[in-house]
């Protein structure tokens, strides 16, 4: 049986084109170097409150990329201006001299009258004439890069969180067992008791969907002075910054955070963070036990 001859010692051909540098790393999995963890990635914890008693139920955690962003007033300004521009109706209209109803006849001779020369009576110089450069219906909307707008959203939420003005409510925040006739007075008592009403700067309730009891109570005359309620599809960055505090349903907050994270790489988005938390053994809701707390301690700064 012929055996294969052992390979002779041959010098490897030098790779003349390769740049000089450290030898390439081994491809063994145990020796692949992982990038170091980002020390700036921390967590933002806030209590979830029951509604309407506002009793703290549990602690909920979100990544710092979503609720602990530094304050960027310039980005907030751009977002508010962008929203205001797109909200403009733009229907102001005036008539130019060509649109004013009237004849084009020259109303007096060019020369010989001793007065200024005039063409038709629709001139802007004359009473009853057109407007020279008046407004016309147009689109005032401006553009803002999507990623900048999303960053503004999360910056506004982070600002509210840092000031302690972001209240997280449990899902389905609704006035249960309260008759619609009593709801305005009941809600006014709720806001006064918890220092969330007119005297304390008013509150914005943000819910995932329209809650008939809560929304109906705030639509009564005079309740706008106490608080406002909007659903996630109608809320703006400006609304988040306007009133004294924001009381948001947990599902509404997560909807907004997911909707406005296009500027983050996929690895830093909320879904990826949830998966990493689940792998580590902590969910987004906390308050389970000492073992979970230790894992949480490893995450938070």
């Amino acid at each position: 049986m012929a055996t294969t001859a052992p390979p002779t010692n041959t010098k490897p051909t030098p790779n003349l084109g390769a740049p000089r540098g450290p030898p390439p790393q081994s491809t063994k999995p145990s020796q692949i170097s992982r990038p170091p963890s980002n020390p700036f990635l921390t967590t933002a914890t806030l209590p979830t409150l029951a509604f309407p008693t506002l009793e703290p139920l549990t602690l909920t955690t979100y990544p710092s990329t979503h609720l602990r962003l530094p304050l960027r007033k310039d980005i907030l300004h751009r977002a508010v201006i962008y929203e205001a521009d797109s909200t403009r109706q733009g229907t102001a209209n005036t008539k130019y001299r060509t649109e004013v109803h009237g004849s084009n006849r020259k109303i007096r001779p060019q020369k010989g009258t001793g007065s200024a020369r005039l063409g038709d009576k629709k001139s802007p110089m004359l009473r009853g004439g057109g407007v020279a450069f008046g407004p016309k219906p147009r689109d005032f909307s401006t553009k803002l890069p999507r990623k900048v707008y999303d960053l503004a959203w999360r910056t506004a939420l982070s600002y509210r969180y840092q000031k302690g003005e972001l209240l997280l409510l449990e899902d389905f925040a609704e006035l249960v067992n309260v008759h619609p006739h009593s709801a305005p007075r009941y809600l006014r008592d709720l806001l006064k008791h918890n220092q969330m009403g007119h005297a304390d700067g008013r509150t914005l309730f943000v819910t995932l969907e329209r809650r008939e009891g809560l929304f109906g109570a705030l639509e009564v005359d005079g309740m706008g002075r106490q608080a406002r309620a909007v659903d996630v599809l109608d809320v703006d960055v400006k609304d988040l910054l306007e009133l004294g505090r924001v009381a948001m349903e947990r599902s509404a907050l997560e909807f907004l955070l997911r909707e406005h994270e296009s500027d983050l790489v996929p690895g830093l988005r909320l879904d990826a963070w949830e998966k990493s938390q689940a792998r580590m053994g902590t969910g987004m809701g906390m308050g389970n036990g000492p073992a979970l707390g230790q894992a949480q301690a490893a995450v938070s700064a």
Partner: protein
Amino acid sequence: MRAARPVEQALRLSTPRPAHHVCRNCRLQQFSTSRPVPASEPFYKRLMTGIFGSKESREADRARDERQQKKVKELGQRQGGALEKKRDRRGREYEVAAIVDPTETQDYVQAVTWDGLEQVGSEQWVRERADRGEQYVGFRPGKRVRLDAAQWRALLHHVVVELLTLQKAKRALEEACWPRVGESETWVHTRQARIQSSVDGSVTMSFAQAEAEATILASIPTRHPEQMTQNAEALSREVEGAVAEGGPADAADGPKGNIPPAWMDMSIQDPALKIMLLKRILQLTAQTPPTPTLNTATTLASIYTHLAAPAAPKKLAHAPALQKLQSRAPNVAVHARRQTPIDAERKVGRWKVIQDELMKRDLPVTGSRHREAKAGISMRGREVRIT
């Protein structure tokens, strides 16, 4: 009229002959489209009845007055002037208004103005009547409890001892927020506890008497109570008892001022402990550290430092930096509000005289919203002239 004769003939033949004689005009009116109204009463009589009333209507009025007087007499004979009480459709009790007959009650004076009378029919009145009366009950107490640094130390000691006692007995920490059994005064026993925290954040607790721990556990119910919200009086009594003088066992050697004691170095990174601590403090004092503080707090000392810090002054004049200015620069006066000409008059002592003279002449002392305020000002179109 000659043309009406063939019509007459046709009518005579077509319609059945009436038994009595019908004049020509009536015959012609047989084709009228309007229904003739028989006049049962003459017009004059109808007019008199409408103005002065008929016999039947006068009888009805008289009967109604008699019934009213009878009712008034019955109400007058009621003991103590008690009003009749009734229930409406929704089960709400109300009092029927009294009927007072001025001819019988000599001391009754009819009101000339509406001051003091019950007013009905306004929008607010309608809303109040439609209100079903559901009362809001919140988790936190109605009033915020203000405590100084020493009182906060005592209260936090009381709360932490309760929570650690439950944790040691392997009971749920949520039970700390449940209403206590009977009139138990757990603060008497929590004072006896001594808490020691180690470097790694773990904590040990010991009682001077073993019965104290058992008494604390016995005062906290084990079953979910039917009435979830605690009595406000019980909560305020608990706070007063916990922060009373003669506080925790280690208060004698505790630090002064806002410096947190050594036992507050205990770790609160356990989420269950953190949320229950927050909940219990909120339930007792209606205060809670803001969420960023809660987020970064790893020991109880962080929370205590925030709670015990004095509230930021609302007026710049009350800020510590400007308070110090009074001693450093005595020629500078700092005021909390705008100084008005009245303040200038007060400083020289002239205001009292001005006030007395104005009141003597029945003139308004302050304000501009009175009848004579704009006597010298006239507005013509857009131009304001002051004379």
